[in-house]
Structures are given as C-alpha cells and as structure tokens.
C-alpha cells in the first residue's frame, strides 16, 4: 500500500465515518468526543479517502457559508456519501451539486414557488390533505403503520400537486426514491432507478411543453425550456431533485418526530393544544434534535482554508456534520434533550450557506399542520409495538423510522 503525501501516516487511527449509532435517537457518541477533543479531524470514508470531519456548530456554519468550498460532485476530492450516490449525482446533476453562479441561475428558476408567502398560500390545501388522510386512518384498521398511512402520503401529495406530477404514480416514484437514497445500494441499481425516474419525468416534461399547466414543472417548461434557457435534460434533473427532496425528508420528520413526541408525553400535550407559537418552536426543536438529513454535508475546498487551528488544503474533502453541530452544547444548552420551548433555535437541520434547503418554508408548514392535527385527532395515539422492535433507517441518506405501528 502507498501512503499519499499529506495524509496521516497512521491512517488506521482515523475513525470511519459515518459511525454506527448507539442509541437510535442520538447521533453516534464518537461525534460528541470529537467535538470535545478533535473538532476538525480526518475520518476515513468508503472510498478509502480521508476528508476532514467538522463537528462544532460555529465551524460547520462558517464553512458552509464559505465561498471557498464547493458542492461539485465532479471535483476530485469530493467526499461522496456512497458509490451509488456518487453515480446518481453524476447521472442526474442538479443545482444541489453545483456552485454559484450556475447554482444560483438554476435555483432562481424555482425560488418564487418556495417563498415564505407563496408557501403560506398552500395552508388550506395542506390542511385539507391532512384532514382527509386522518379521516381515512380513523376508518381503517388498528394498529396501522403511521408512515404508510400519513407521514409519507402527506408530503408526497403536496409536492405532486405543486410540481404537477400525478400522485397516482406514487408507488413508482416512492420505490425509486428509496433506491436512490440507500447508501448500501449497488451503483448500477442506483443508476437504473435514476434512469427510470428520469424517463418518467422526461415524458411528463414533454407533455407540459406541448400543453401548458399551472404548476412548477408546467411553468419551467413554458418559461425556460421552450425559450431555450433550460434544456429538457436539466429540467428533468431539477424535477427529480424537487420530487425526491420534497417528500422523503418531510415524511421522515413526521414519522420520527411523532415517535419522539410520544416518548415525551408532556411536551406532546402542549403541541396537541396547538398554540401556534408553541407549535412553531416545537417544529424547530424537532428539526434540530432529529436532524434527519444526517450524514454530513459534503464539500471540497477550492482554496486553502485556515479554521480552528487546522489548514484544509485546496482539493481536500470536507464533511460538515450538521447532525453533530446541532448537538453542540456551545450553541444549544442541554443539547440532547427535547425542549420545545427552546429560544433562538438557529439549528442547521436545513443546512447553511447558499445550498440551504429551498423547500424549508414548505417543510415547516407541513410539520406545523401535521403534528397538532394528528395528536388532536387521536389523543390516545400510542406506539403499538415495543419500542425496541422499531427499525430505523440507518442506511439511508434521510434517517427516520422504517415503519411506525400505532394504535389509539
């Protein structure tokens, strides 16, 4: 074996990232140790490379906002999450893995659909979808899987309606989304799932070019594809990003968040009462505590960066561990506890810097409506299996519960 210059001589001393979790509710304990002892240190990832793992809140924030870091998955040194995810990002390249000014050019094409005010206008639609799903759940058998009955269909229906994707095809795209977010998936399989989703969305875009529709993909087709500003291929990449990011994330916050609330009945009761100020803070707190997008934001340095007594060299990989930053006691007192009254909760669950989540106003609104509505409809809601039997999404880019059998 050859040891490349610049890498620690004793590579075996580098911890492997991501580490397995101990308690399923908390990030791996090693992260707390690194925050205390070696807040910026090299870790070993699947491809044998040793990117820098950044674990403290202030450092994660400042690096993610630093214009000298790149999200470009084509750059050498980019620390990808898995071979499958790398293959998919290259197979379907969207603005989440581009740098400015390219990133900004694409992101601006869809920002107007995700502003705080525009999102707020969806409140009646989301409330109706929530009520209908809860009606159906109430009529259905007990116990039932909350993920299948509520957590997944809600954001899926909302994003379908916004994008103009027929919800009737949900089995197809949910199955494929799952495949492309699984870090254990064989790259060939990931690319196949990505290609199938792309074929599907390409057909849909072609229809929307021929016949205008009043939805995000329809507007993209008319305003940008037909005018030549955006190729159909790039439009499809954007559609795929929005479709996948738009439902898996929120779905896992609903499922895992509900479980967390049920474990904390006093705080759940306050959320059930529904005072908007309390609910809003509770949602931020759950976002922080659970940080479901959990295996670090992946970047590569464009220039030498001095930070925390360390020099990150141009071309070296960086993993900004938001799941660790959100448990940093320097930023959040008693960080491992759920405290729905926590003030000034500037968590990093949506990332930070120019790639900070585009859909966050939508995610917030969905969660702010979903939790209290669910708890009000079923005041006796409880987990219907021993908590130890619950299976978690360890191998997925978005963490959460695989299923949550509940009764009431």
């Amino acid at each position, binding site marked *: 074996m050859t040891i490349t210059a610049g890498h620690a001589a004793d590579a075996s001393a580098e911890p492997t990232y991501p580490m397995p979790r101990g308690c399923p509710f908390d990030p791996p304990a090693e992260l707390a140790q690194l925050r205390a002892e070696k807040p910026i240190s090299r870790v070993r990832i699947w491809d044998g490379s040793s990117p820098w793992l950044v674990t403290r809140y202030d450092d994660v924030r400042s690096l*993610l*906002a630093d214009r000298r870091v790149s999200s470009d998955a084509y750059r050498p040194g980019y620390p990808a999450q898995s071979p499958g995810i790398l293959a998919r990002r290259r197979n379907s390249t969207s603005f989440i893995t581009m740098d400015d000014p390219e990133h*900004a050019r694409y*992101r*601006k094409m869809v*920002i*107007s659909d*995700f*502003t*705080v*005010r525009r999102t707020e206008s969806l409140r009646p639609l989301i409330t109706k979808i929530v009520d209908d799903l809860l009606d159906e759940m109430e009529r259905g058998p007990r116990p039932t899987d909350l993920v299948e009955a509520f957590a997944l269909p809600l954001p899926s229906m909302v994003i379908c309606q916004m994008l103009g994707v027929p919800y009737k095809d949900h089995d197809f795209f949910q199955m494929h989304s799952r495949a492309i977010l699984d870090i254990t998936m064989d790259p060939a399989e990931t690319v196949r799932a990505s290609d199938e989703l792309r074929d599907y969305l390409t057909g849909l875009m072609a229809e929307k070019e021929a016949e205008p529709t009043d939805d995000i993909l329809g507007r993209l087709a008319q305003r940008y594809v037909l005018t030549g500003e955006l190729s159909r291929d790039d439009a499809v990449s954007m559609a795929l990003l929005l479709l996948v990011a738009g439902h898996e994330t929120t779905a896992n916050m609903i499922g895992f968040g509900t479980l967390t609330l049920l474990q904390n009945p006093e705080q759940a009761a306050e959320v059930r009462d529904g005072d908007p100020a309390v609910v809003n803070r509770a949602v931020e707190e759950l976002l922080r505590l659970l940080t479901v997008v959990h295996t670090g934001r992946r970047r590569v340095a464009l220039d030498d960066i001095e930070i925390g007594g360390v020099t990150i060299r141009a071309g070296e990989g960086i993993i900004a561990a938001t799941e660790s930053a959100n448990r940093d006691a320097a930023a959040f007192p008693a960080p491992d506890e759920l405290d729905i009254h926590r003030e*000034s909760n*500037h968590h990093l669950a949506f*990332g*930070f*810097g*120019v790639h*900070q*989540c*585009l859909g*966050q*106003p939508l995610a917030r609104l969905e969660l702010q409506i979903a939790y209290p509505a669910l708890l009000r409809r079923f005041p006796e809601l409880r987990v219907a299996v021993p908590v130890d039997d619950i299976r978690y999404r360890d191998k997925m880019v978005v963490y959460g519960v695989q299923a949550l059998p509940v009764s009431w």
Partner: protein
Amino acid sequence: MKITVDRDRCIGAGQCVLNAPELFDQDDEGTVVVLEEQPTPDQEPAARAAEHACPARVITLV
C-alpha cells in the same frame, strides 16, 4: 442601526422574513426586500436574529 442587503447574492431562503417579518419581505422572485432600513430599538433583536440566520450572509447591520 441600519440594515443593508446584497440582493445579488440572496438565495431566497426566507430566513429574514421568518425572523423579522416587519423588517424584511421577499419579492416575486424570492429576493429579499428591506421594508424598514432603520429598525426601532424594539425591532433590533429581530434584525440581529435575521442577520445571524441568513445562510448566504447577505444581511449587514451597521
């Protein structure tokens, strides 16, 4: 206190509007609009929260 923003680098994340709705809005393209350049002392904490939260670091308070 005076609020300035770099509209060209705004990414439309809307953190400003969430933290200080009296001081910031987003135009139809999602870009930040300052509603009140000179916040009252009452509004200064909200302005600071918005400055801290802005992920693109485009809000400056002087």
